[in-house]
């Protein structure tokens, strides 16, 4: 089966703390910090968007993959914040990395699952021989309406994976998908901010699909939680992935390396893919990693990876995800955040 040849992540430098947002809305910061296990989130600068972050993450992935971009036969960008409603992100990315013109491009959208589905499709095409390498990106500059609970989590970041059959950093052992029609979160055309169904987004949405997918995946593979060195789940906040993991029988130590959301926020399509990059940064050859994404609407993609010897050779070729998250931060106030996220309507 195909595997991951190279991987990379990117997130903006700007951070806003939960207290700074709560102060503006008269909300109770300690209850958000405790209840959702969120401390701060990454915010894009005005000149950053899904495409620029996808390019940054892909450059990191290419450094680790060490392949000629011309050999990439497919570029798939998963996001719910593609800068254009009509005009692809994928072509800009493909051109920026020098993969054009002999390349197939598509933009994916499936709430927070679009990144993992780009990975899923690339694996299928590489396995089938239609492409030598595919580039799968999950990237978002997600939006939360001012004052909405989402504003504490909606963050920005990207993860990129070069996928193919060559010598890679992780083999894909098993894949599994779990989908139902569940309307927990949506944004219609022309709506600036998404809407969500409050507590319905928890048990019957996130947990039903993440747990259903993880169980189905492990059953298909004949595996149990103790067989994995690490597990990565979609991270809409800090609490859900930790709780889902513990409900499945994983230990905190298995989840923590890829658990970025407390200080990163929810990077939507980038969320579990970025968690995977942080996990690969610390994994050893032979380690097995379980990854389960989640996208509202709703569904989860599940993957089991086995890390190969090549990880040791390439992981230092690009910045590590946790190091990027912890260093070089720039804290902004709510006014700057509102300006950067274009929450202030300018005069005509």
């Amino acid at each position, binding site marked *: 089966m195909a595997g991951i040849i190279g991987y990379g992540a990117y997130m903006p430098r700007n951070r806003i703390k939960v207290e700074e947002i709560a102060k503006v809305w008269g909300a*109770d910061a300690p*209850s958000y910090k405790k209840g959702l296990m969120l401390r701060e989130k990454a915010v894009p600068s005005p000149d950053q968007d899904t495409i620029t972050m996808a390019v940054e993450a892909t450059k990191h992935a290419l450094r680790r993959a060490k392949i000629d971009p011309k050999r990439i036969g497919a570029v798939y960008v998963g996001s719910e914040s593609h800068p254009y409603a009509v005009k692809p992100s994928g072509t800009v990315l493909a051109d920026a990395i020098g993969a054009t013109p002999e390349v197939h491009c598509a933009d994916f959208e499936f709430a927070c699952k679009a990144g993992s589905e780009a990975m899923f499709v690339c694996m299928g095409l590489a396995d089938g021989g239609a492409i030598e390498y595919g580039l799968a990106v999950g990237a978002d500059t997600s939006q939360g309406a001012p004052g909405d609970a989402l504003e504490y989590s909606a963050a920005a970041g990207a993860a990129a994976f070069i996928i193919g059959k060559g010598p890679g950093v992780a083999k894909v052992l098993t894949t599994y998908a779990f989908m139902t029609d569940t309307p927990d979160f949506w944004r219609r055309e022309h709506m600036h901010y998404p809407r969500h*169904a*409050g*507590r*319905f987004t928890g*048990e*019957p949405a996130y947990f039903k699909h993440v747990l259903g997918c993880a169980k189905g995946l492990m059953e298909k593979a004949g595996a149990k939680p103790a067989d994995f060195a690490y597990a990565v789940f979609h991270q809409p906040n800090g609490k859900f992935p930790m709780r889902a993991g513990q409900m499945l029988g994983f230990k905190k130590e298995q989840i923590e390396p890829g658990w970025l959301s407390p200080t990163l926020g929810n990077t939507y399509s980038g969320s579990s893919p970025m968690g995977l990059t942080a996990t690969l940064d610390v994994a050893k050859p032979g380690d097995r990693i379980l990854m389960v994404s989640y996208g509202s609407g709703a569904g989860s993609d599940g993957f089991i990876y086995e890390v190969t010897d090549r990880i040791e050779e390439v992981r230092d070729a690009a910045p590590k995800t946790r190091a990027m998250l912890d260093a070089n931060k720039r804290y902004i106030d709510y006014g700057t955040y509102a300006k950067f996220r274009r929450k202030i309507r300018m005069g005509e």
Partner: protein
Amino acid sequence: MRDVAVIGVGMQKWGELWEKSLRDIFTESALLAIDDAGVDHIDAMYVGCMTSGLFVGQEHLGSVMADYLGVAPIPSVRVESACASGGVAFRQAFIDVASGVHDIVLAGGVEKMNDIDGGGATHALSTAADAEYEVYHGVTFPGLYAMMAVDHMHKYGTTRDQLSHVAVKNHRNGSRNPLAQYPYELTLEQVAGSLLVADPITILDCSPITDGAAAAILCPLDMAKRLSKRPPVKVLASAHATDTIALHSRPDISWLSAVEKAGEKAYKAAGLGPKDISFVEVHDCFTIAEICAIEALGFFERGKGGRGAESGETAVGGRIPVNPSGGLKSKGHPVGATGVAQVLEVVKQLRGECGGRQVKGATIGMTQNMGGVAGSCAVHILGSV
């Protein structure tokens, strides 16, 4: 007037019932009650429900529920009295049987509150207050009960800790009720330290948003002795009173006059007084509501209700156990179902079926179910036969 008995009750676990609809949860509880009673038919049905139109877009519940329960064409009607809808539905069923119009009558209650968001639920519940003079100006129920709490604290010295004790005691009881929405114990610190909603009311002073239903089967006492599989429970009194809809129209905003009046009528009808009651299920939609209710029902002197939970007098095993079921606070508060579920708890207590929360030696139980800030109130007294 014929003597009336409750011969069957039914309820399933309350909570966020995402996989079930309004009609599902009602019919499940109704079928459990019918099975519990062991009857093969019902003659009439009353469905307590506050505002299914706003919560799920369905009115005309008399027909919907008779249809889905498979009992049409019997007479079936929805009863609305805000959060007292269930208690008043039970009272209508009682009057129906007592008057001799029907023999076997189902009293049910239902509310499906989680299918809309928090703002929608707050709006739906606010319709129980005075739309023109209260809601129009922005007040919601936590705000109204907070004003009552502030007044009670100011006049009588009731404390923040005493409010917390009500929540702690009800959650302790609810932790022993497998059907409760939140069957977890709380600490005083958790209650006082939780999110402030309307000073002094914190989120853990409030009853939750709940999906749930409950049902009871009533019939003439004479018939009950022949018909019932289980020990019948006699309805000793059914009383109902109203008060001003707006809190500000009252001479004393922390005195629940409708509760006092309904209680007095019930005591008189049953020939009993507060000292004769083994335990009571009261309408603790907020912790302060329980304090005010146990005063208005005569279990504590005016202004001294705050001592109830603090002193242990209202605990199971105390002088007058209050809300052994966990109350609205822990068991949940699907508004239209609450009044019927209170009757269910009394019946189960009197039948000795309550396990770890059983009030030992209980022979007479009372229910108090109120709408809004007690603009309406139903009180029932039930006794072992």
